[in-house]
């Protein structure tokens, strides 16, 4: 190509046929090499040519992208506008108080500290259980299971994500909680000296299991499929050459995973886990069913009851008959909204730091 663009661009209109002919002649070229007439037209400067299809598609893509940003901003704005009137009449510090008393409109006392601590504790507990299990399942499905078994097994794991949360909630309180009682009792007896496993009088009974321990395990099961699915996707994409490179060095199955699959899939695994954490933080109905309310403030123990942001809001939703009252709960929702943003940002930062 370049061999005849040279003379072409230098040539003035009068000379063009001659130069083209000589070029073609010099190359021993056929008439097919003759440049088409419109090619010689130099493009007008400063105005790149964009096809209509590209313009339309670009507009569609930009507006879709803009729309999602707009929606998120609108949600944030809504939460803020609804929350402000209630926050102004709050009689206690919203961020540091453990009280939640919205009975009297003239004396609103609400703070989110307990809700925040319970939400974070139960979600992290779920994540700590779910992460290694998901990693194991994803590695099994991509590296160990024969193809015949891997596909249906992956399908079953995905199906787990389709179970409605209300079912998880009911299963958690009626089936899992009684089954967990021996474990809970053992932990409480032997590790009760640790704040995580101590139980105070007034907290939900271990038999009933309406505590963070049961809720966290149910949440772990609920976020398992998403972490597994994301990890499986990335592990599967480990380049074949990498795996063969490790094998050819005399790596065992596990060493291949350690030297190639895990470093390659780490970022995906972390982001999958953060998606799971996001789901755990916002999970409502299962927690609402499992966690027993309590008059005690949160002590940091897994055997405490209480409420998360989402379950607290769901609990009070039927009584939202006044915008200021509702505003107290909306402000709790606002904190949850911000919390999920922070988690996502932290995950991205972690991944970016890892890639460097």
């Amino acid at each position, binding site marked *: 190509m370049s061999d005849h663009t040279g003379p072409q661009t230098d040539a003035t209109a009068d000379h063009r046929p001659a130069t083209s002919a000589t070029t073609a002649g010099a190359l021993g070229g056929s008439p097919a090499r003759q440049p088409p007439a419109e090619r010689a037209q130099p493009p007008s400067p400063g105005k790149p040519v964009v096809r209509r299809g590209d313009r339309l598609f670009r507009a569609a893509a930009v507006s879709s992208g803009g729309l999602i940003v707009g929606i998120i901003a609108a949600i944030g704005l809504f939460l803020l506008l609804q929350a402000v009137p209630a926050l102004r009449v709050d009689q206690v510090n919203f961020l540091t108080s453990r009280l939640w008393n919205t009975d009297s409109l003239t004396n609103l006392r609400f703070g989110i500290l307990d809700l925040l601590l319970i939400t974070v504790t139960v979600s992290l507990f779920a994540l700590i259980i779910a992460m290694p299990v998901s990693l194991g399942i994803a590695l099994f499905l991509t590296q160990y299971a024969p193809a015949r078994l891997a596909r249906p097994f992956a399908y079953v794991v995905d199906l787990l994500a389709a179970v409605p949360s209300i079912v998880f909630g009911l299963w958690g309180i009626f089936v899992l909680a009684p089954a967990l009682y021996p474990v809970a009792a053992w932990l409480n007896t032997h590790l009760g000296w640790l704040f995580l496993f101590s139980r105070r009088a007034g907290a939900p009974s271990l038999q009933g299991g309406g505590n963070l321990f049961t809720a966290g395990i149910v949440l772990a099961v609920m976020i398992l499929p998403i972490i597994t699915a994301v990890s499986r996707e990335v592990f599967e994409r480990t380049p074949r050459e990498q795996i*063969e*490179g490790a*094998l*050819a*060095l*005399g*790596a065992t199955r596990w060493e291949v995973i350690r*030297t190639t699959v895990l470093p390659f899939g780490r970022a995906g695994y972390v982001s999958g886990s953060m998606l799971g954490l996001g789901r755990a933080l916002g999970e409502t109905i299962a927690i609402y069913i499992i966690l027993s309310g309590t008059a005690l403030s949160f002590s940091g123990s897994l055997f405490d009851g209480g409420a998360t942001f989402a379950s607290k809001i769901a609990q009070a939703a039927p009584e939202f008959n006044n915008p200021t009252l509702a505003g107290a709960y909306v402000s709790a929702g606002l904190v949850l909204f911000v919390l999920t943003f922070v988690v996502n940002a932290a995950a991205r930062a972690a991944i970016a730091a890892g890639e460097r």
Partner: protein
Amino acid sequence: MARRLDLEHVNIYYGNFHAVSDVSLMVPPHSVTAFIGPSGCGKSTVLRTINRMHEVIPGARVEGRVLLDGEDVYGPGVDPVDVRRTIGMVFQRPNPFPTMSIRDNVVAGLKLQGVKNKAKLNETAEQALRAANLWDEVRDRLNKPGGGLSGGQQQRLCIARAVAVAPDVLLMDEPCSALDPISTLAIEDLISELKRDFTIVIVTHNMQQAARVSDQTAFFNLRATGEPGQLVEIDQTQKIFANPTQRATEDYITGRFG
């Protein structure tokens, strides 16, 4: 230490597909043997059979014997992991581990074998990089990721990685096909040096390359699509290129087909 390699009546299958039929050949120690032939004739498959990399593909299997100084690498009780530590391999596309530094890439094999001594690892890394003619280019950035090197440097890094574990045999599967002519020349020079220490088998599409680097050349072909590939002849490289015994070989090297 370089060792002698014998293939005896090797038949290779992918599931029910008979990919390579009845290959027998001998590779003397301290020599370079080139496998040439048209695409799909099974030369890479034969190469991958030698270090038992073929069997990692589901359904793949091998019949016959591959002897390393008389010991069958497919013998009962032989661990393929040990075979691959004894018979190193360099691939078509450079494949350094992207998350590892240059030094860690070179000693990855040693680390897998459980060598932990820092001084020993550093020493081996330098030796291997020198052996791969890469030391002078990377000595100042041993802790930088290997993915930052040029294609030719990456391939020499992979060669360094393969020789760092001191294998007996080095297999090279079209090691220059993704490289520019200058990098190719660097690798070819390297191959001539490496045969002092290793027995080398190289698959190549480039007949000039086979003529330049190898002592003996094996020509593979297949009768028709769907038929298994086979070894047409193997002989001294000079003989193969000057005066081959088989008509098919002559046709191929003179460019009449393939």
